[in-house]
């Protein structure tokens, strides 16, 4: 690379082989919710290379502490963990001030959501959502309870592995990404139809957080490491019409 990317530089084109296809029959709900036509590829304009900017003053002090941010009458039940890592682009550069939003089930595998009817108990002290911004080095960390697995309606006895949903908003609209983080050693990972929709084993491994003993807090919490890669932002070297320039 010649120079660091500037705001408004374009993003590398997306590699579809890094992602699950829209139509993944093993994940039954995708069958009727996947477009049949090819996506139309467009050269990025300001509409795609810009994106929402979030200020640190918009976040509260407990937004990244899921153990405390819904605690009403005591602490939530379950395994206390810290999840941390960094957000980089495909060139390995840190993505600063990226908004990370997470949501998850509680230790019983139950979501605090009006549509979740699972028999697993709600925890009066656990909400299950958090958010944070990456720092100058692209690093983030949050504290939570390890979510439990739960059954879901796909095949009759399918269970989701423990997972945390993650939504990331980086430097531009084209970088927007939603994924799920799984936990090393979970036996349900091997058969999950949602995870197995990803056609590449190394990409699946990239979603499995590893236990990180170096970040344990003594007599308090274990830790998991989860690094995220967003689309690379590149300097356009030669172009006849500079973006946004009036002719």
């Amino acid at each position: 690379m010649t120079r660091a990317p500037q705001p408004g530089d374009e993003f590398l084109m997306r590699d579809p082989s890094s992602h699950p296809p829209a139509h993944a029959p093993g994940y039954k709900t995708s069958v009727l919710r996947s477009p049949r036509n090819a996506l139309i590829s467009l050269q990025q304009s300001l509409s795609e290379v810009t994106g929402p900017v979030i200020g640190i003053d918009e976040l509260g002090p407990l937004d990244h502490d899921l153990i405390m941010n819904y605690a009403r009458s005591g602490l939530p039940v379950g395994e206390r963990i810290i999840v941390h890592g960094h957000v980089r682009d495909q060139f390995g550069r840190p993505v600063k001030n990226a908004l990370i939003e997470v949501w998850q089930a509680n230790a019983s595998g139950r979501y605090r959501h009006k549509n979740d009817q699972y028999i697993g108990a709600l925890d009066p002290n656990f909400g299950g959502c958090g958010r944070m911004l990456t720092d100058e080095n692209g690093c983030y960390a949050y504290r939570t309870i390890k979510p439990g697995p739960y059954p879901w309606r796909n095949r009759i006895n399918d269970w989701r592995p423990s997972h945390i949903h993650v939504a990331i908003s980086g430097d531009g609209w084209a970088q927007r990404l939603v994924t799920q983080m799984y936990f090393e050693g979970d036996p349900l990972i091997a058969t999950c139809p949602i995870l197995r929709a990803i056609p590449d084993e190394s990409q699946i491994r990239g979603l499995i957080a590893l236990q990180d003993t170096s970040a344990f807090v003594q007599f308090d919490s274990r830790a998991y490491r989860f690094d995220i890669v967003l689309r690379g932002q590149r300097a356009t070297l030669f172009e006849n019409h500079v973006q946004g320039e009036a002719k």
Partner: protein
Amino acid sequence: MSNLLRETASQTAGPYVHIGLAPHAAGFDIFDNKVGPVLVTPETKGERIRIEGIVADGSGTPVRDVLIEIWQANAAGKYNHPGDRQPGKAIDPSFRGWGRAASDFDTGAYAFETIKPGSVMGRDGRPMAPHINFWLVARGINIGLHTRMYFGDEAPANAKDPVINLIEWQVRRQTLIAPREQRGDVAVYRFDIRLQGEGETVFFDI
């Protein structure tokens, strides 16, 4: 190119996406989330508009657990982002241009209250017709879907829009154009999105 890192794999946002992105819709309030379906404040410049519609699946059934985000320029055609260096256009401090709406769990209806954006200069120096960028995630959507809404009352601009004109099939271009209706004092644009099948909306690889 092998030294490039690979983008982290996408996964569905799932049926409970609202907990993370729209907690009020999930049925509880945890922190003040300023990104909702109302993008305007009294100070925002521009014509107030309402956008409403449904997202339908391949059977025509409304998708009742979709989460939609929009990203748009302000009334002057300027994005609130440092990468927008268009000369002579100012940021509106009362308008970020980012919104989120969850569809109604019973009807599938969604709505945004926003302003009509101005025209933004396109990549090749040709102006783009006013438009709003849409991004959809839901259970059963493995990677977020990008599309654009254009305005039915901007036919001359739409006819010259460089992105609309990328779509080879005239009949499919119509899926991006929202008709305008005046409802009392409010201008309402109807934008229904079809994920699959007859009238399938054009989605973009951006």
